[in-house]
């Protein structure tokens, strides 16, 4: 994982709530078996609409996406995160996230900052007015923009992993002995030998 300490970039306001991952990357782009090459699919159907905010030339270089409540709901497709990263985003700021999207973002080093709706609204207004430079400092867990200093919550272990670019699987494998001990003590998973349904077994 690429380390993330602090990032300064311009913000783009996505004034929509409950943005689902089918919008972030429509399913038809998900037959790509790699982890890269998704930038063209990012918000593909919305980008086909002329008024969509990412089509605004002022926001071309944006690296911070500022979205409404419950961003990234719906499917588990990690391509939603890969597409945001491929397009150039390093940070998303929103009041809340879909659980799977947020876990996927951490696994890939896309920093998801949680900020209350009024802070998100102020950031969106700043970027609409063209004053959109935002710094997201993971070390201090602080988001800074003109007139805004927001301390955001971030899990300590995940902060550590992102700051140092640690591989989460390697981190877990350090506890291999505990996993093996659990497996030895574990009640074996029984299986239903005969498949049953409420209708006659087939």
């Amino acid at each position: 994982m690429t380390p993330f300490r602090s990032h300064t970039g311009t913000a783009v306001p996505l004034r929509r709530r409950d943005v689902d991952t089918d919008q972030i990357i429509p399913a038809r782009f998900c037959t790509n078996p790699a982890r890269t090459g998704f930038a063209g699919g990012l918000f593909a159907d919305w980008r086909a609409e002329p008024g969509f905010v990412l089509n605004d030339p002022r926001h071309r270089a944006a690296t911070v996406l500022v979205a409404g409540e419950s961003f990234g709901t719906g499917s588990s497709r990690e391509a939603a995160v890969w597409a945001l990263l491929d397009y150039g985003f390093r940070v998303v700021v929103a009041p809340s996230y879909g659980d799977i999207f947020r876990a996927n973002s951490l696994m890939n080093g896309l920093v998801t900052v949680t900020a209350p709706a009024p802070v998100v609204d102020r950031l969106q207004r700043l970027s609409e007015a063209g004053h959109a430079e935002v710094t997201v400092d993971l070390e201090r867990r602080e988001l800074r923009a003109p007139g805004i200093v927001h301390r955001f919550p971030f899990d300590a272990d995940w902060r550590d992993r992102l700051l140092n670019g640690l591989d989460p699987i390697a981190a877990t494998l350090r506890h291999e002995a505990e996993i093996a001990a659990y497996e030895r003590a574990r009640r074996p998973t029984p299986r239903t030998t005969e498949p049953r349904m409420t209708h006659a077994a087939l």
Partner: protein
Amino acid sequence: MAETLAGKIWRTHTVRSGGAGDDLLYIDLQLLHEVNSPQAFDGLRAAGRRVRRPELTVGTEDHTTPTRSVHALDPDPARRRQRSLMAANCAEFGIPLHRLGDPSQGIVHVIGPELGLVRPGMTIVCCDSHTTTLGAFGALAFGIGTSHSEHVLATQTLPIRRPKDMAVVVDGRLPAGVTAKDLVLAVIARTGVAAGHGHVVEYRGQAVADLSMEGRMTLCNMAIEMGARAGLVAPDEVTAAYLGDATADDEAYWRELRTDPGARFDQEVRVSAAGLRPYVSWGTNPGQSVPIDGRVPDPAALADPGLRQAAERALRYMGLRAGTAVRDIAVDVVFLGSCTNARIEDLRAAAEVLAGRKVAAGVRMVVVPGSARVRRQAVREGLDRVFAAAGADFRAAPGCSMCVALGEDRLEPGERAASTTNRNFEGRQGTGARTHLVSPPVAAATAVAGTLAAPSDL
């Protein structure tokens, strides 16, 4: 201390407690499908890692498979490549795989229970958000992304924070003609699509206990549509009967698998089953649903500006006007399928409505069974002949089909469907497609009427 069912499963699967952070959770079973998984295997190879417990891992093909024939050559090379990568990866790492044409192939969430893999008290993951379906068995089952899938392949564990507990209590009994699908749409219409974030939802109450295993699967399937990490129903006699004799040896164990009296839920929603009617979605998320005798709501009546703006956009996308009676909405396509509603009970319910009737002129009805087993059973019961006589297209092979429009089956731009699926998101069933989520009986009645209808309207 009084514990919730989710709490008990969590505790007994915690390999290492993370305090306020992530616990390391042991995973009893991982299911895989052909989309979302090649990158996980590439990651393993790049790091020189093996699959720790291939025997606790099972794969299937479902998202992209053709449904007209198991023999047809898929014209799309990207889909073919995805499936051949899945086969090669499963072979290389020793993971059993049910390919198209295999008698146990089908939608991943449908075949897990059929294969006897899903049992009360387990932890189950799959790189698919509707893994919540399997909570119907009192198992803690949830969707994960590809990197987490790779993590489970390599370690059989997942670093994850303990979710909060939410109860959805459904008092009373569902009226005749009201299904688990209607119930779950009614719940999401009330809570919204984000209420469950960070929670495991345990469905409780008389109306839940009354549901068959199929109905419970439908209910838990859509727990993700209210944002929940997982859905759960405590195992009981209905579960025992479904699982059959093989459970007898550990009955005592799973009878403990219930929420203790006095256990605390972080959130509770109470719903009365008695007044519920069939529900239909009008918008572009499952929370935008109303009873079938209702009208398309007026966004101006919504106080929350974000919700109002979302409703306005949904109406534009759906090509609907506020105030339109739901029953006046005409459809082009009816789709009976998906992990929500393509089990045998769903097919029976639709066939019962279609028997002796015809699909309306100008309406296409497509029926895609959830698994090869479901299809065989449907044929055994003669449901295929009912579908054919009504003019519905009963497909030869199971799969996700029109639910996600990844394979050949999809809606054309602007086409409107009544669909027994779980997501009415923009573009979900094809670019520009318009989806109304419905139950199987409503799907069948709509096919006959040509407009959104309940069986009682025919």
